[in-house]
Structure formats: structure tokens, C-alpha cells
């Protein structure tokens, strides 16, 4: 496990892992299992009918963390993985996913993953998913994550997704269904550069009374890259939803942001905001008066924006 410097670097980037994880974990490397550990309250088992794992978290599990990172170091490898999470009632847990691709060859490396969460009543899940690509090869680094979340009564998910850099093509597909009193908070951070493309399609369905949804999407498109966002919030009951998309556009990049809110109930209160713009000149000038060069000021603004 984590036997090469490349493995260690990728795992640190995508899951902040500096050694063997504490608690339950499953490390997937080049389509194989590179390490797994279940705990008393979190069981991880392989699927028998298709690639992927089932993660079962017992009711009442509190304060535990489950790491399930994926790394790909072989050029030309392509995989489709299905991971299902069954979170019992009254849990409070952290799940750290993420995918890192190191591609030094000339063939495309690709990871497609479907994560489905069934979160029991009054459980709280914090889910982090970071994506990162590197390598000097001409082969593409592609990731297409699909995330589906079902929140039962009073359950919450705080989902943080980050595309750090180096992913040539991504299509994110997220669907969250909130039951009564459930809450979904999604924070999306995305950076594209070169001629990369990124598309994020998101649908939050506020089905239950007093459910809440909040989407905070921040992206930076550099060079000739392009991004498309489709965050949608649907209110089917008395609920509150807020979609906020902010993008910084640079160089010859292109960004399309199409937030949509749909109310199917008179008591639904939905808000969306979307903004695309370049780095403001007065922000650069201010940081220069603090002694930063123009390049340092630009980096600082982007880092803060995507932090």
C-alpha cells in the first residue's frame, strides 16, 4: 500500500493522507484493491456483480472517518466503479473520497465513478471529493463522477468537491433528494486550464417539508479551457433553496453558467445568483500596495477564491 512516491503524492493531494488512514478505508489503485480496513461500525465489502464496494455504516456511529481514495498510475487504464454507502440512523461521520491520475503515457486514463448514498434519519455526513491529475504524457486524464444522495428525515450532507488541477475532461453529475427537514450543502470548487473542459450538472430536489438546499459553486477557467454549469434546485414542498455560482474567467477561456430554480409549491422559497467576471483591477492594485507582485497578487486572489 502506498508503495511508490507517486502513490504517496497522489494520496496526499486527494485525501490529505500521509500514511495509513485511521479508521475504515479502501484504497483503489489501478483497478485493484491496494488496501482495505473495516472497523466495528463501518464495514467495507466488494460488490459481486460489478466493480466497486459497499460501505455500511451502523446506526449511531459517531466521530468516525472512512477514506476511499482512487489512484490511477497506468496510462490507458479506463474503469467504471460503483460505490454504495448505506448510512444508518443517527450517525455523524466523515467520508473522504477523491481520485488522482498520474499519466505519463500517450493513452487516455479514465475513471468513471457512481457514488450512491442512502443516509438514514437524523444522520450527518460530511463528504469530501478531490480530483487531481498530473504526468508528462500526452494521454488525457479524464474523470466523470456521478453522485446520488437520498436524505431521509432530518438527515444532512455537507458535500465538498474540488477539482484541484490537471483534469483534461470532466463531466460531473450530482443529484440529491431531500426528505422532510433534511439539508444538503454542496460546495463545488473547480479549476480548468490549458484546453480542458468541465461540465457540472447538479439537481437538488427539495421534496420534504422544511428541507433546505444550498449550492456554492466557485470556478476559475484559465487559458483556453471551457466550463459549463447547470445547477438546478427544485422545491416540491415548503422549503428553502439557494444556488450561488461565481466564476473567474481568464485568458481565452469560456464559461457558461445556467442556474435554474423550480417551485412546485407555494411555500417554496428559492434563490439563485450567478456571476462571471475577470479578476478586478482594484483587487490586484490593493495587493500590490501590500508588496505582492502582480503574479503573486493574481495567485493569491485565485487561491482565496477556490479555498
Amino acid at each position, binding site marked *: 500500500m502506498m508503495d511508490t512516491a507517486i502513490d504517496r503524492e497522489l494520496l496526499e493531494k486527494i485525501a490529505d493522507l500521509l500514511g495509513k488512514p485511521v479508521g475504515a478505508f479502501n484504497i483503489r489503485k489501478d483497478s485493484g484493491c491496494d488496501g482495505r480496513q473495516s472497523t466495528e461500525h463501518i464495514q467495507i465489502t466488494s460488490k459481486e456483480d460489478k466493480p466497486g464496494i459497499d460501505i455500511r455504516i451502523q446506526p449511531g456511529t459517531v466521530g468516525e472517518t472512512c477514506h476511499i481514495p482512487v489512484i490511477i498510475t497506468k496510462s490507458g487504464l479506463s474503469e467504471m466503479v460503483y460505490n454504495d454507502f448505506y448510512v444508518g440512523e443517527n450517525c455523524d461521520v466523515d467520508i473522504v473520497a477523491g481520485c488522482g491520475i498520474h499519466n505519463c503515457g500517450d493513452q487516455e486514463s479514465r475513471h468513471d465513478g457512481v457514488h450512491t448514498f442512502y443516509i438514514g434519519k437524523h444522520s450527518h455526513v460530511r463528504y469530501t471529493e478531490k480530483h487531481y491529475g498530473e504526468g508528462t504524457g500526452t494521454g488525457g486524464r479524464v474523470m466523470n463522477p456521478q453522485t446520488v444522495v437520498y436524505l431521509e428525515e432530518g438527515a444532512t450532507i455537507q458535500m465538498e468537491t474540488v477539482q484541484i488541477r490537471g483534469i483534461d475532461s470532466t463531466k460531473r453529475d450530482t443529484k440529491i433528494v431531500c426528505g422532510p427537514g433534511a439539508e444538503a450543502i454542496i460546495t463545488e470548487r473547480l479549476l480548468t486550464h490549458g484546453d480542458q473542459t468541465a461540465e457540472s450538472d447538479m439537481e437538488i430536489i427539495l421534496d420534504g417539508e422544511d428541507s433546505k438546499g444550498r449550492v456554492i459553486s466557485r470556478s476559475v477557467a484559465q487559458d483556453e479551457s471551457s466550463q459549463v454549469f447547470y445547477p438546478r434546485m427544485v422545491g416540491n414542498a415548503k422549503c428553502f433553496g439557494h444556488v450561488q455560482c461565481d466564476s473567474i474567467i481568464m485568458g481565452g477561456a469560456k464559461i457558461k453558467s445556467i442556474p435554474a430554480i423550480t417551485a412546485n409549491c407555494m411555500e417554496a422559497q428559492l434563490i439563485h445568483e450567478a456571476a462571471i467576471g475577470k479578476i*478586478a483591477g482594484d483587487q490586484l492594485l*490593493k495587493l500590490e*500596495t501590500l508588496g505582492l507582485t*502582480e503574479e503573486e497578487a493574481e495567485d493569491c486572489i485565485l487561491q482565496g477564491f*477556490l479555498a
Partner: protein
Amino acid sequence: MLELKHLSYAVQEGDGQLGILNDISLSVADGSLVVFTGPNGGGKTTLAKSIMGLVQPTAGEIFWNGENITHLGITDRARLGISYGFQQPPRFKGLTVRKLLTLASGDERLSKDRCCQYLTRVGLCANDYLDREVDASLSGGEVKRIEIATILARQGKLMIFDEPEAGIDLWSFARLTETFEQLHAAGGATMIIISHQERIISLADEVIVVGEGRLRHRGAPAEILPQILSDTLGGCPVLTKEAKAL
């Protein structure tokens, strides 16, 4: 010492040139507090910005501690100890107050205690503000006070403040004038403050009235304040007696 020699700044207007600054020469002694005041549009901010490098003069020279900085960029001037508090500071999505103070101080490990000292001097509590983003969630007055705190954290040898009182409530303003007074008494920095406030003007070693891009008057507050007051409505020879009574 700061020296401006025959400084001019003009912009194109139609077929001709419009002078914003017109042949300004000025020396500011180390450790002194100088207030620029005068009518709106008179050239105060352009003059201050030209010292920081935010405006490039079309003629003349600027010397800081004997070094000709006329053609230096903003970053280089900042690194020579010149700092500038904007009249309307920008907001940053994602940058926290702590990060901004850290950048200003140049010390990546700036302690919470130090941050607290800078914020307290502008009337803000570190516990409430350190981890907040300097974005649209803050009021104009809060952003302005954070801006002034960054100048305090910068600890420059020349501090320029453009209308620090603008948008700040009365209580915070009182705290701010105390801070300027203490900074001046400590004598570590030269301060140039653009202000229209009598309380700030009265702190100055020298008051310079800037109008139509020129230095109209200069002198001690006791000498200049009566002249400023005589230039207000009450001193206007055009207004009728009835209009003055309104």
C-alpha cells in the same frame, strides 16, 4: 523624507490636455503628519496615488529617502515602505481578514494577538472578524476599517490614508483619530491623510489645501482652518442674505 518636484498629471480631453495636477512641489519631513484637504475634484487623491505609484505622473519627479522612485512600480514602492489605504477598498471573495492582515504584515505566522491589536485600533473585535471573508457580507464601514488595519499591519515608513473617515460611524471615528494621534506621537512613520474632518486636520503638523491641481494654501491647522471655514457657504460672496439664512 518625501519630495515631489514639479509633479504634473494631465489627461487627454478633446483636442487638448486637462491638467489634474499642475507643477506641484512639496517636501514632507520624516515622522510628520500632513493632511491634504480641499474641494472635491481638486486633485488630492491623484496626488496621493501618484506617490504610491497608482497614477503615473506625466511630468516631474518623486523622491523617497533620496531615491528617485518616479518610475518604480507599486510593488517596489510598497517594499520601500510606502503604504496606501484606499478610499473605497476592494472586496475579495474567499480572502479572510486574517489572510489580508497576514499579507499586509509580510509575516506568514502573524499571531492572533497581533491581528487583534491591529483590529482593536480600528474599533473591530478579532473574534468577530478574523475568519470572515472580506466580501459583500461586510458593510462599507467594516471594509474601510479593515483597510486601515492592513495599513497598520504593514508598518510602513510612509502611510497614506485616503479619507479614512468616510463611511465610518461616529464611535469608530473617535477611536480612529486616537489611533492616528498615537501613531504620530510614536514618531515611527510619516503620515499623509486626505481628510475633510476638523478633528483629523487639527492633528496635523501641516495642512495643505489642494485645489485645481495646485497647492493653494499650506500651514499649521490653526492658520488653515479659519481659511477653510471662510471658503464655506458662510463666506460665499455670491449668496444672498436669504440663501445664507436657509
